[in-house]
């Protein structure tokens, strides 16, 4: 590949991201009622989840060494990850699975574009981040400020942000690879449920709460350990294990390679619904 081809490749990819972002924005704005419903849903989720956490801490002082304010930080990280997943990754993975089932994918495969890039960035929901994420996080931020008694160093903060970025990439690859199962089974809904269940959290289990041997490799089947539990642990200075940090970074790179490989494999397996 020479320089001009490389430049053209980057240019096409940039154009795809830009066009998809604009389209996603228009799509989200078009359904105002849906947005209100969605906001009400996420806001109520946040409030009920905070009731859940507060009710538990009304009976206990700490969970796996996490005080109430540390647990609120944990929940905050989990929420940030939730919105990033729904803003950039999961809708694309879901659309891919459904596209396989309905045969919609055929149309994209006939276009002269980088297909894997296109299906990865088909929907970039910035509206969700602005209209849902910020308002629904208000009760959590209020409780965090009210109960804040932590010292988070700059180094830990940078480590935490790095972990979120890599955790999101790993999670995306994990869910994407899982949904590629639809190429073989022809059904996507079950894979969607599983991808959501394994990738996001329902219970705030701190990293230190997992069984010892599960802490090192558990994230391979349960990415929530990586993007939320381990991130919180690094951010709060509860973990300073460098080898674990390198392990998860290495795993992210491997996950990207595996995603690429399984995508090619799935395309070879793909028999179009419309052909």
């Amino acid at each position, binding site marked *: 590949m020479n320089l001009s081809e490389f430049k053209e490749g980057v240019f096409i990819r940039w154009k795809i991201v830009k066009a998809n972002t604009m389209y996603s924005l228009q799509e989200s704005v078009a359904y105002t009622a849906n947005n209100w419903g969605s906001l009400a*849903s996420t806001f*109520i989720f946040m409030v009920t989840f905070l009731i*859940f956490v507060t009710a538990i801490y009304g*009976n206990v*002082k700490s969970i796996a060494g996490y005080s109430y304010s540390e647990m609120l930080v944990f929940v905050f990280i989990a929420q940030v990850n939730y919105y990033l997943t729904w803003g950039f990754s999961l809708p694309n993975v879901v659309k891919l699975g459904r596209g396989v089932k309905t045969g919609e994918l055929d149309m994209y495969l006939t276009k002269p574009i980088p297909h894997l890039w296109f299906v990865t960035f088909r929907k970039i929901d910035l509206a969700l981040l602005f209209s849902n994420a910020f308002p629904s996080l208000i009760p959590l931020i209020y409780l965090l400020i009210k109960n804040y008694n932590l010292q988070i160093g700059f180094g830990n903060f940078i480590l935490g942000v790095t972990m979120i970025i890599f955790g999101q990439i790993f999670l995306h690859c994990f869910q994407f690879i899982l949904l590629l199962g639809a190429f073989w089974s022809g*059904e996507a809904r079950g894979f969607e449920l599983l991808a959501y269940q394994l990738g996001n959290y329902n219970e705030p*289990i701190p990293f230190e709460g997992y069984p010892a041997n599960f802490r090192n490799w558990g994230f391979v089947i349960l990415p929530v350990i990586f993007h939320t539990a381990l991130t919180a642990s690094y951010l709060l200075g509860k973990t300073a294990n460098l080898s674990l940090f390198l392990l998860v970074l290495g795993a992210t790179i491997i996950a990207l390679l595996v995603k690429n490989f399984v995508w090619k494999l799935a395309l070879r397996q793909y028999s179009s619904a419309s052909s």
Partner: protein
Amino acid sequence: MYNLAMLKIYRESVAAGFVQVTNYRSEIWLAILAKVFQVFLLILFWSVVSKTSQIKFEIGELISYFFIANAVQVLVDGEALRFARLLTEEIKNGTVSSYLLRPINAPVFLYTRFLGNQGLIIIISLALTVFGFFVYFQGNLIKILLFILTVFFALLSAFGLNLIVGSFSFWTTESKGIKHVVSHVIRIFGGSLIPITFFPDRIKLLILATPFPSFAYIPGILIRGGITSEIVFGIFSAFVWSFLLLFFGFWLWKKGVKQYESVGI
């Protein structure tokens, strides 16, 4: 004679729904796997709470409670509100018209088809409930009968609640937001995520007066100890709510149908 013919139609509707679902076997199995995973994580969370705090649980009791609470909640459709989603889809797409034109009770007909569709999930939920009973059960025949009674009331309440949420689609077209709101509330106040005993006494009493604990908490605590005032109050509350929700559900449906407009009618 008419009633018998109706029963036959509803029975056939269940069978048709069940046949339909056998086409999507992988979907069902993966959904079950996801649910089992969720319950295991829940058990892990509470065992972490038990190990690292002052509150102590017996692991058998913990497994049993969460398996039964979550299985019953799925069994009666008291969390995901799948039936409400089905109603929303039917109303949104206009396909509900074909049921409204027939001489049948449309919500009941749709519900029987839905039950058939959920056949495999119902069977697995029952199996998980039985598993929960085998792991830890301190009781007698009366408690088993009370369990069945609670589940029955929960089923009626959940049907009513689904009908109410689904009927909103006659006015809003899209009731996904309302459905999610109700789901979140049930998740916390139903007891499938956190036993209601964790709430302060006054709030606990308030929660027990809602229909939600009958979906998970009351069936979950029936496995242990004696018949407490909490259980009696919970079952009585479920009994009252099943009537109220059913009545309001059908009333709202009728109201919705009156103002429903569809292309082709």
